[in-house]
């Protein structure tokens, strides 16, 4: 801490000396990594080309060409400076932000190194990352809504899957807007089932979630095999088209990456604002968080704990339903068995990595989406890292975060426990 005076520090401002040192060493290690792993292994005359134009956009940007080695040295130097400052003085509350910056330097160095002597479509990579992040971020939002009120929801995966099925079915029967509506509704109904099991019957919340997951996998695969695969018309919903945001989509580089997508991507950005405001600046949010942290105290103040939980869980389910609709209406336009492929659990991971906070979860989801996007491009980069290991990244990061190595998350205190009035 920079201010070593005797003032009582709030717990969230306090960074222990050990952690300060550990973080400093991590920063230095990353900087050293850039230098030793990347910079020393390229020849001085090599150049890296980043394409900033993802294709399909009206704004054409010239490629960004730079000499690889000097760039890597600059990155390593910047990282080392940050590490040295951290060791000497410490960044205090900003430590985690700086960790993000240094990690970004490392990733950028990795890309520059991987694309040395060739070219990489950076804009395309980021654009795909944004798209891949959508189900993860929305899944994380679903988790936040439930867990902030004190109900573990490991059934996001199952809710998404069922919603995806309904989106495909009703999207094909009526139209995609109706499919979207039914998908959200389905998520809500599944969440209601979870809430009834967990709140009314006081079933262990992990078990209740498992029930929903097994049921969802079973019923969607069953109905899909029984109907969707036999009648192709029932599984041809179409999808939402791309809509360019006026003006914003014309910004070079940023425009096509962020503002030339379909409904779901924009919804993700809108939800992050809505959810932040709702959770932290409204009475409802305060109550929900109170119920998740200390239900007894909330009850004493006249908040109906179980009703608050029901509402939050159902809202969370509707969010998961929306995320599920993305798989069909925002992505491929049809339902396939177990098509969510564990994204609900990665969403849960993004929620934890984002410290049960919408903005944090957005960042975490983006990072995981980036890892996903990069994994599919690794073959192009000719990097000696198997893409399967990169795909493990999000899971490993989550475990590290949970273990408290890089700063312990703060889950809602009453999570997982049914509330019983005395």
């Amino acid at each position: 801490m920079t201010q070593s005076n005797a003032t009582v520090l709030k717990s969230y401002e306090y960074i222990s000396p050990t952690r300060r040192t550990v973080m400093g060493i991590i920063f230095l290690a990353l900087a050293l990594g850039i230098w030793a792993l990347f910079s020393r292994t390229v020849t001085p005359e090599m150049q890296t080309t980043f394409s900033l134009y993802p294709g399909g956009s009206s704004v054409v940007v010239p490629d960004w060409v730079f000499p690889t080695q000097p760039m890597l040295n600059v990155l390593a130097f910047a990282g080392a400076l940050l590490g040295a400052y951290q060791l000497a003085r410490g960044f205090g509350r900003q430590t985690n932000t700086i960790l993000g910056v240094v990690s970004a330097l490392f990733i950028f160095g990795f890309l520059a190194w991987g694309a040395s002597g060739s070219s990489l479509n950076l804009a395309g990579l980021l654009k795909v990352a944004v798209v891949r992040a959508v189900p993860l971020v929305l899944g994380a939002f679903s988790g936040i809504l439930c867990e902030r009120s004190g109900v573990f929801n490991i059934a996001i995966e199952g809710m998404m899957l069922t919603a995806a099925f309904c989106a495909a079915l009703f999207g094909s029967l009526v139209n995609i807007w109706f499919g979207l509506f039914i998908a959200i509704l389905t998520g809500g109904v599944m969440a209601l089932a979870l809430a009834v099991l967990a709140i009314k019957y006081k079933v262990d919340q992990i078990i209740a979630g498992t029930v929903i997951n097994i049921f969802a996998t079973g019923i969607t695969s069953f109905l899909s095999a029984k109907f969707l695969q036999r009648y192709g018309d029932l599984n041809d919903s179409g999808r939402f088209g791309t809509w360019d945001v006026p003006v914003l989509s014309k910004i070079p580089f940023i425009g096509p990456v962020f503002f030339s997508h379909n409904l779901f991507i924009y919804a993700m950005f809108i939800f992050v604002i809505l959810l932040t405001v709702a959770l932290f600046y409204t009475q409802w949010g305060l109550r929900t968080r109170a119920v998740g942290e200390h239900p007894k105290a909330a009850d004493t103040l006249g908040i109906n704990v179980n009703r608050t939980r029901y509402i939050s869980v159902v809202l969370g389910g509707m969010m998961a339903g929306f995320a599920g609709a993305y798989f069909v209406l925002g992505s491929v336009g049809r339902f396939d068995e177990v098509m969510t492929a564990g994204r609900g659990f990665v969403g849960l991971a993004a929620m934890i990595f984002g410290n049960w906070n919408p903005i944090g979860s957005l960042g975490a989801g983006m990072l995981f989406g980036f890892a996903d996007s990069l994994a599919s491009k690794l073959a192009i980069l000719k990097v000696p890292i198997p893409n399967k290991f990169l795909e493990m990244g999000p899971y490993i990061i989550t475990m590290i975060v949970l273990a408290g190595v890089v700063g312990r998350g703060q889950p809602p205190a009453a999570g997982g426990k049914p509330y019983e009035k005395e």
Partner: protein
Amino acid sequence: MTKTEATQQPKDAFSIFLDELRRNSLTVTILAIVTGLLAGGLIAAVTTEGVYAAFRVSFFGGLKAGLMVFWDTYRALFTGSVGVPADIFNALRSGDGAAINKAFTPFFESLLQATPYIFAGLAVALGFRVGLFNIGAEGQIFVGALGTVWVATSLKGLPTIIHVPLALLGGAITGGIWGMIPGWLKAKTGAHEVINTIMMNYIAFRLSEYLLNGILRDPHKSTPISAPIEKSAWLPRFFDDPNRFHAGFFIALLMAFLVYWLLFKTSWGFELRTVGLNPNAARYAGMNIVRSTVITMFLSGALAGMAGANEVLGVNHNLAVAFSSGYGFDSIALALLGNSHPLGVVLAALLFGFLRNGAIQMQLTAGIPIDIISVLQALILAFIAAPAIIRTMYHLKEPKVTEPTLVAAKPEGK
């Protein structure tokens, strides 16, 4: 379980089991299973187009068509899992060995399907008893299978009596390590084992994809699949084809006995159960919670790993990507159904094994997709976990003693 239990006369497995069942109310368990099965038939009936066509003609015709679907479904389920009674009878009367083998094949195939369930169910149940929620059996099955396949393909020229145990051990150890990591993290950092085991599941999937595309891959195959394991590592089979019943079933039963013996007959098992029931009391009594947690998760992972080993050594004789098909998640349901007691787990695993095998037949003859058993299992699990639903449905009386509801994610007293 009460404090007095330790001082009571030692009881045999069966009476403890009955005791436990009564606590969990046997009636509710049976009704949960029956209700689940009926619901499955109902789902089969309402998703059959023919039933609606018949209803359009007349109400009773529709009812009859619906009941026919019911009947066909359960008949296929029965003949698929147990066998056709007439065939069994005729085969026995003729005394022809091959015919008898063929007639009994469905029955033994069900036992075969139940075997990995027993292993994985024991894994989850052992965790439950110590207050740990091992939701990562699926991943542990995968890495267990990877370890086994490595031992079973790379070691050559060993006699079966050495190679099979070694290969099983390979699966148990790799699975155990996979389970131990979340256990260690839980004990040392308090990181919730549910999240960590889920994460480990996906790491295991990616790892198996990587290895099966890399060093373990059979270079002669176009799909990512391991080389066939050495003949010496095959778990011995008892009958001629098509009967695939093998020694793994008995190993599973042995494991069930060992888990029972460990939990209920050793002082160490008492310690484990105490940790599961009341970590604070256990800590005050001087029990080592860190050690219990880590070792339990290792053993749990090892049991799940043996499920993977069993499938490789006994059934498939090689390893393909995504071979496990949901044993790990189903095992959570069956551990609960069996009330986390080894004998209960074996019975529940047999039920699930018969269901799974019967469902294959059901898919072939009655045209009901096999996935319906997942729906059944989810419903049974819901009814078991929330006995109040069944009580309300059948107007059962509340039990006099309050049931020990299972709370796996016990809050650690800090």
